[in-house]
């Protein structure tokens, strides 16, 4: 059981190739991290897996526990168990956070079956407490007027509520101060489970001090150029990406 990416190629709508053959296997129970410089295609990889229509997949496959996902729409992929925590979450004016998450949960239920409101709020409040989010965030419009850190915390809240099989966190650490980073990491670590695979996309090693990955991959120019254990992140931190590119292409 895994989220498996095989020789994935993708372009922008104008034909510019961003992903140039990415192969990666994220089995259940494991946390993988992808690091890499700006423009290496990390975020694109996450968006292509989630089904963003701004990209064209030109070759390769992605399977979720063996099932091909490219025939599925974005919302179907989400309901099938893929979760993307956005680097830049959208604001949804006029829609309260509680109603938004409820709508997302409702979308997973068969027609005619309604969410148990009491159980829902109990669960929501428990998760918010863990993320040290004030209760007022239930009534506030989704991400509207939220600080960068609040938005990221809100992404983790949604992830915890939706309990996906595979989580992709796109630069969840960017824009977070150290306290917020610790809280977000606490939420992510609480989600670690033998039944769940995770992919952390990050620019910095710092996040990995708090969420220990099982595997670290380095992406450059649309490919995974190196894979290793957690120590790879420290090497990167020490020597920088240039060193790695040289090592990879030497």
């Amino acid at each position: 059981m895994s989220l498996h990416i095989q020789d994935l190629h993708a372009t922008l709508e104008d034909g510019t190739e961003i992903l140039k053959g990415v192969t990666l296997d994220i089995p259940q129970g494991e946390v993988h991290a992808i690091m890499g410089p700006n423009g290496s295609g990390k975020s694109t990889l996450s968006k292509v897996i989630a089904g963003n229509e701004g990209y064209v997949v030109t070759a390769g496959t992605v399977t979720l526990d063996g099932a091909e996902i490219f025939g599925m729409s974005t919302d179907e992929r989400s309901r099938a168990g893929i979760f993307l925590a956005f680097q830049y979450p959208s604001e949804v004016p006029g829609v309260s956070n509680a109603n938004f998450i409820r709508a997302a949960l409702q979308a997973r239920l068969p027609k005619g079956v309604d969410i148990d409101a009491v159980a829902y709020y109990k669960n929501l409040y428990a998760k918010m407490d863990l993320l040290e989010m004030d209760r007022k965030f239930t009534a506030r419009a989704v991400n509207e007027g939220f600080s960068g850190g609040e938005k990221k915390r809100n992404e983790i809240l949604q992830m915890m509520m939706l309990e996906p099989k595979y989580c992709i966190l796109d630069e969840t650490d960017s824009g977070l101060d150290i306290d917020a980073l610790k809280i977000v990491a606490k939420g992510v670590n609480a989600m670690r489970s033998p039944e769940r695979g995770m992919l952390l996309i990050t620019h910095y090693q710092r996040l990995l001090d708090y969420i220990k990955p099982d595997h670290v991959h380095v992406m450059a120019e649309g490919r995974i150029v190196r894979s290793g254990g957690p120590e790879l992140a420290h090497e990167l931190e020490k020597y920088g990406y240039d060193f790695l590119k040289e090592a990879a292409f030497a």
Partner: protein
Amino acid sequence: MTTTAPQTPAIFPAWFAARQHEAWERYLATPAPKRGDETWRFSNLKQLDFAGFVRGADVSPTQAADLISRSSGLENTVAKFVFVNDELAHSESKLPKGVICLPLAEALVSHSDLVAAHFMQQETRLGSAKFAALHEASVSNGLFIHIGDNVEIEGTIEVHHWISGSNVLIFPHTLVVTGKNSKVRVIDIFRSADDISPGVAIAFNDLSAGPNSQLDYVAIQAFNEVTRVIQINETSTARDSSAKGFVLNTGASWARNESLSRLEGAGSRSDMLSVSVPAREQEYDQRTFQHHVSEGAYSDLLYKNSLYDNSKTIFSGLIFVDRNAHHTDAYQTCRNLLMSDTCEANSMPGLEINADQVKCSHGSTSSQIHDEEIFYLRARGIDPVSARQLIARGFSVQVVERLGDDATEELILQFIDDKFAHIDTTDP
């Protein structure tokens, strides 16, 4: 109906009969709106042909009982009135002393002088003077609300106006006067007894907020889609008063709203709010006027339209600051959310400032939902139709929330949700 003078019932006071007679003459003398009139720019003037529509015939007791039972609104009200074709069908009230809340037909007899002092005192200047005259000449009932000084009403007065029968014309009227330091909220709900009978409503609501009072008014227009409506809203605010006027349009084939706020007292405030959700071939034509007569007053207008299918909206708004109305704060915003490629939103914001030291802004935007927004919702498992609906609903919620009363907001959202449920949202 528009060719013979209406008969003022003999029971009504002489001043009223004279006003109605004079209004009829004015109606006849006032030319019909024509192409080229600025106040009717972009309007569909064909909608103004009301030939063949007549005052409502009596409804049977069974029909009336049915409509009374369908007059659902807030769970709790302090008073509730149901009018069917301008005839009072039901009333109930728990209003305290110090409040006069009576059908206009009754108030004209029992409180003639008080009604005379407040009845249609402002000049209709946003284009529908002819129809205001017709209304004045024809009005036979409605609600008269007078809140005495220092009386604060907790809760809401709810008024239902039904059109029953085919080719029926009604003239709903709501006149609200608040005394010093008083408070009240009134909701008018306009509906049709069935979905297929054409009707016309020429409605007038007149709000006069006394010193330091708070007057909230909501009009929910949910007629069937073969009915046309002209709704004229006149508001005046005395010193330190606050008036909120909210108009929801979900029904009617064509609706014209004219809303004028006169800020007559220093420190007074007028919030002019509207949500419209037109679909199919519906047309909503809204004209507004924020008239700053006094210095140091505040007005804030927020109109939002979510347009589906081939629907059309017109917004024309003017902030007008009189010569001595210094230290005015006036804001005007109209936002259009275009939910189809074939809808049409026209906006004409305007500003005329004749005083110094004023803060005024006006703006209008039209946009579609961004792909990134939809992607975000879909990435949470929400299907594209629900995602668009959630965003469009949220767009309206931002205005509704300004009312600051949970029960009222919930009621308005019920009407909005009901409208969404009757829109074919598969159109991208």
